[in-house]
Structure formats: structure tokens, C-alpha cells
């Protein structure tokens, strides 16, 4: 080991210790509880295959997360595309618009949606006044409401990596495609879209993983009927005291995320996605 390397190890040691003590140690405890409570063994994990209640919660979570990710990606792609091609002044203004909601509490945003979407909310009142509907639409207290709230929360997280990826696309490549006779649609489909794909995967991954752990938005906008996995875990830990079951699901979730990262890592270079390279 050279002196240089030794110095750098010493310099990152405090951070490593901090992560080990405050993050990996509790995480290891979660894992241990999941195989020791109520008795030693994989009994809790067997529930993944036997408990209809857990399976349904996981499926609901998966369904909402997939929809949220898909809708977020489409919207984020549009915004990022316009953002990349806007003039600098407009770009700054747009960026502020993207970032502003990011700094607002998730609670405030969920309640704002309640005001807009509820039975006698702004949206339904406006549609009724315009004569478009006779009865209020069920815009929330269901999965629709949850998805709307989550997409709104996730948009900045989706837009920023996409924008970063699109900024790195060399404009001369596009000009060359046009010069060689490709129309605008073809240039986009054959050149721009493939070049922006790492950004799509990166932001999709980020949004999907964030969505998996969502708690407040589904609890407020779901009308109590949309129970996602984070809430299920919370009930097991705080109320029912079935810690073994709660920690088992939490561990399963972490394992699933690692698996997802691993598979995607085979397809694209994760270090490029998160800007480390």
C-alpha cells in the first residue's frame, strides 16, 4: 500500500465507521430478527408463499410502483427534453419549477392533493360547473389518487437524472444525422433516444426504488383501502408486534432492490447512471 492510498483510507475511515455502526449494524439486526422471531428458522419467509395478505400487499405495491414509474418516466422525459433545449434564461426558470416541489414537505403536498381531488374539491367543482360531469368523479381514496400523488412527488427525481443524461448528448451527433438525410423523427428515434437510454434506466430505477418505500402519500390519498408494503411493515412493528414478520418483509424488500440493481448492472454501467464515471 502506498502512502497515498493509506492516507485516503484514513480519511474515509470515519465515514466508513459511521456507516457500519449506524447503518449496517441495525440492518444486520433486522435480518437477525427476521429469522429468530418467534422461533429460529425461515418460518417468516415461508409466509411469502403462504400468506395471502402479504402477497396481496406486495402485489398492490408492485402495481402502484410500476404505474408510478411508467407515468413519471413519460412526463419526466418530456420535461427533461424541453429543459435541455430551452434557452438559458428559460432553463433557469424551469429548473426552479422542477426543484421547488422537491423542497416542500410530502405531507403538505399530499394534503394539497386532497383539496384538489376530493368529492367537493376544486377539480370536481370545476368539472361540474363546466357541465362535463353530473356526479363527482372518484379521483382519490383509491389507487388513482395514490398514483397521482406519487407521480407528483417523483417527478423531480425523474427529471434530474434524465436532464443530466440529455445534456451530455453531443449536439453535433444530431446535426450529423440531420446532415446525412434523417428527418427530425428519425433523428430522435435512432440517435437521441438511444443515447438518452442510460438516463431513462437511471431515473426509472431511482423512482421505482423510492416508490417501493412510500408511506405517507398512500396512507393519506388511499382512503385507508390502499395498503402498501411500508404501511404493512409499520403495522407489524408498531401495533401487532409481529416483529419477525415486519423485519422479514423489510429484508425481502432490500433483497429485491439489490437484485434489481444487480440485474440492471449487467445491462448498463451503474456508475455512469449515478455520475461516478
Amino acid at each position, binding site marked *: 500500500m502506498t502512502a497515498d492510498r493509506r492516507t485516503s483510507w484514513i480519511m474515509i475511515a470515519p465515514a466508513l465507521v459511521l456507516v457500519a455502526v449506524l447503518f449496517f449494524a441495525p440492518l444486520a439486526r433486522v435480518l437477525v430478527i427476521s429469522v429468530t422471531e418467534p422461533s429460529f428458522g425461515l418460518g417468516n419467509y415461508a409466509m411469502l408463499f403462504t400468506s395471502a395478505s402479504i402477497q*396481496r*400487499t406486495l402485489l398492490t405495491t408492485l402495481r402502484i410502483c410500476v404505474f408510478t414509474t411508467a407515468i413519471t418516466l413519460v412526463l419526466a422525459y418530456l420535461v427533461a427534453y424541453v429543459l435541455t433545449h430551452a434557452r438559458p434564461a428559460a432553463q433557469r426558470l424551469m429548473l426552479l419549477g422542477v426543484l421547488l416541489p422537491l423542497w416542500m414537505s410530502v405531507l403538505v403536498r399530499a394534503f394539497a392533493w386532497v383539496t384538489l381531488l376530493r*368529492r367537493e374539491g376544486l377539480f370536481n367543482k370545476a368539472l361540474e360547473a363546466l357541465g362535463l360531469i353530473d356526479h363527482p368523479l372518484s379521483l382519490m*381514496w383509491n389507487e388513482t389518487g395514490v398514483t397521482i400523488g406519487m407521480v407528483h412527488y417523483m417527478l423531480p427525481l425523474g427529471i434530474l437524472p434524465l436532464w443530466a443524461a440529455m445534456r451530455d448528448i453531443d449536439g453535433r451527433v444530431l446535426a450529423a444525422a440531420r446532415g446525412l438525410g434523417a428527418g427530425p423523427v428519425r433523428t430522435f428515434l435512432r440517435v437521441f433516444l438511444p443515447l438518452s437510454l442510460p438516463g431513462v434506466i437511471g431515473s426509472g430505477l431511482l423512482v421505482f426504488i423510492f416508490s417501493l418505500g412510500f408511506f405517507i402519500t398512500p396512507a*393519506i390519498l388511499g382512503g*385507508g383501502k390502499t395498503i402498501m408494503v411500508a404501511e404493512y411493515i*409499520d403495522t407489524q412493528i408498531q*401495533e*401487532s*408486534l409481529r416483529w419477525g414478520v415486519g423485519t422479514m418483509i423489510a429484508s425481502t424488500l432490500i433483497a429485491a432492490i439489490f437484485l434489481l440493481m444487480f440485474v440492471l448492472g449487467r445491462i448498463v454501467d451503474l456508475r455512469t447512471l449515478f455520475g461516478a464515471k
Partner: protein
Amino acid sequence: MTRLQTFAEDRAEIMGLRRRTVLKGGAALGVGTLAVGAAGFGGGAQAAPKEVVVANWGGDAVKAMTEAFVVPYEKATGGKMVIDGSGPSNGKIKTMVLAKNVTWDLVDSGLAGTGELGPAGLLEEIDYSIVDKSKVTPGFAYKYGVCNYMFSTVQAWDTSRIKEKPTLADFFDLKKYPGKRLMRKDSQAMLELALMADGVPADKLYPLDVPRALKKIAGIKKDLLFWGTGAESQSMLREGEVVMGWLWHTRGVLLQKDTNKKITFTFDGGLLQPGLWAVPKGNPAGKQAMVAIAAMQAPEGQVKLLAAMGNGPANPAAAPLVPPELNAINPGAPENVKVQAKIDADWYQANYAKVRQQFLDMIAS
């Protein structure tokens, strides 16, 4: 705050909001989450052995309980009592007991607490040689918890859309009164009210016919919304999201006030439930916790709590001390007790964990 709230937690929140300061409002919204951080640092661990630490759900419940309980206790026994408002959730109590680092002597709990914690060996048994059973309304003194105050789950409705006082059966009659209905996201009280709506007499509820109750509720699930916090139940009725709902009487009282009785409620067909004192296993003050419970059985303090928070006194001897104007909102007032069913703790001890999950599965499916 989005976690399922207990009655005690919500009552603390009501008190917080009543002060109408921005700070308190914020604290009320964050009760569930903020309290977590403070849990491990609750005072009293290193204090003198006789000091009793009472854990409740914060907000102005700290002030109300100080006036109602701490002052008389300290005067009567010369001991010290501290209120810790950081919120004694089941999960936190289990963490403390397993870590053998218990800082609370008494926790403001309910059947959801004693039902789960007691059988798991996480609570001390109530010592009825010190705590006086005769100072508790019959049926509300249990092995792992003793009644601290009473509350009710009642039916409330929107008088602008329902002109006549609806029965429990009307809750399930979508033709007679179209519109959404509101229930708590928990089996407790919901199953009882559903069974009574289905024709089961109030005194023949237990053992609960769970499949029958779940089937009854599932029949109108499309038109049901479920609340987790008391504030949620209140706003859904006030804002016209639902035409009727089953909620805590304290929120019913607030709705009557806020809407000038446009939203109203009745104790008829309600379920009388106890708030319970429970003692975490290995509590620092030992038997002194029982002495404290006994001191708090004095009727005067309990009437103060009724006036401040709407909690019904647990001690029947408090009845003559209750001013007549408070009797209308007192779930334990004799005329209100007569028209309600009474919860059966033994049944909950044996069945709660399983049935609660069944209930959640039913609403999520």
C-alpha cells in the same frame, strides 16, 4: 401521523389544536413521527426510585394530566410524578422491555395495547391489593390494565343530507341514504357496530361472530372510507366526503361545535371502551406505579379530565360531581351507558391480533 392512531393519541392532538398555535398544530401533525426520536430519552431512568414516570401522547394532554393527576398525587403521597409526552406505542414499549431499559412506569394505553403486550409478557399485572377495583366501573378492571377514563365509538351523520336520526342499520342501507360512509381502519368497535346493525343485541355481542361482521362490512366496501387519525375522521365529515361515519365521541363533540350541529352524533348504538393504565414489565418505580394508579382513582381529578378533554371518568363515584352540561358529552353518564354496548376485554385479549389482520385484509382486498 398517518399510522393508525390510538384514542389517547388523538385526544392529545385535540388538545394541541385547541390552543391554536402554529407550533402546536405542527406538533400534532407530527406526533407519531417526532415522538420516535425522543422515546429513548424519556426522563426518569436515573431518578430517585419513588419517582413515577407517566407516558402519554403529548400536546396539552401533558398539561391536563398534570392538573388532574400530578398535583393531587404529589400532595397525597409526597412522591414525585413526571409526565412524558413522547407517545407510548406498542412498538416502543416492546423495544424498552426487550432492551431492559424501561423508563416508563405507567402508560396511557387501551385494549389494543394490553391485548397485544399483555399476552407477550411485556406488562406487569395490575396489583388489585393496592388499586381499588371498586373505584372502577364494573367490567373495566383487567389483569394487565385498569380503566383510566372511558370513551365511545359513535355514529355521526350529516344532517344536511340525512334529515332523520339514522339507525346503525341505515349505515348499510345505500338506497335509503346514498353516499360514502366512514369507518376506522381497525377492527375494534367496527365489528361490534356492524353486528348490532345486523341485528345482534348489544348484550349478546361476545364472542363476536367475526365472519358475519366482516361479511356485513364487505358488502358496502365500495362505499366505505377508512380513517387512521381522529383529525381525518373529523375533516371527512366536515368537508362532505361522507354522509355518516363511526368515530370517537370526542371528535363528534368537536364536529357539533365546528359545524353548528350540521354534523351531529348519538351515543345510541355506540360502543363504550376503556382507556387503560398499563405498567411495562420491569418498570423503574416498581410497586409505586400501583400506588400512583390508586391515587389517580380519586373522582375529582377524573372530572377535571372530562372537562378538559372529554374523557369519561372511570370511577362511578365521579358521577355526582359531573356538572349537568358535561353529561351530554360524557360517555360514562348513566343515560349514555344505557344505550351503548360495552367492550369485552377478555375477547380482545384472545383474538385481537388475528382479527385486526383479518379486518385489514378484508378492506385491502
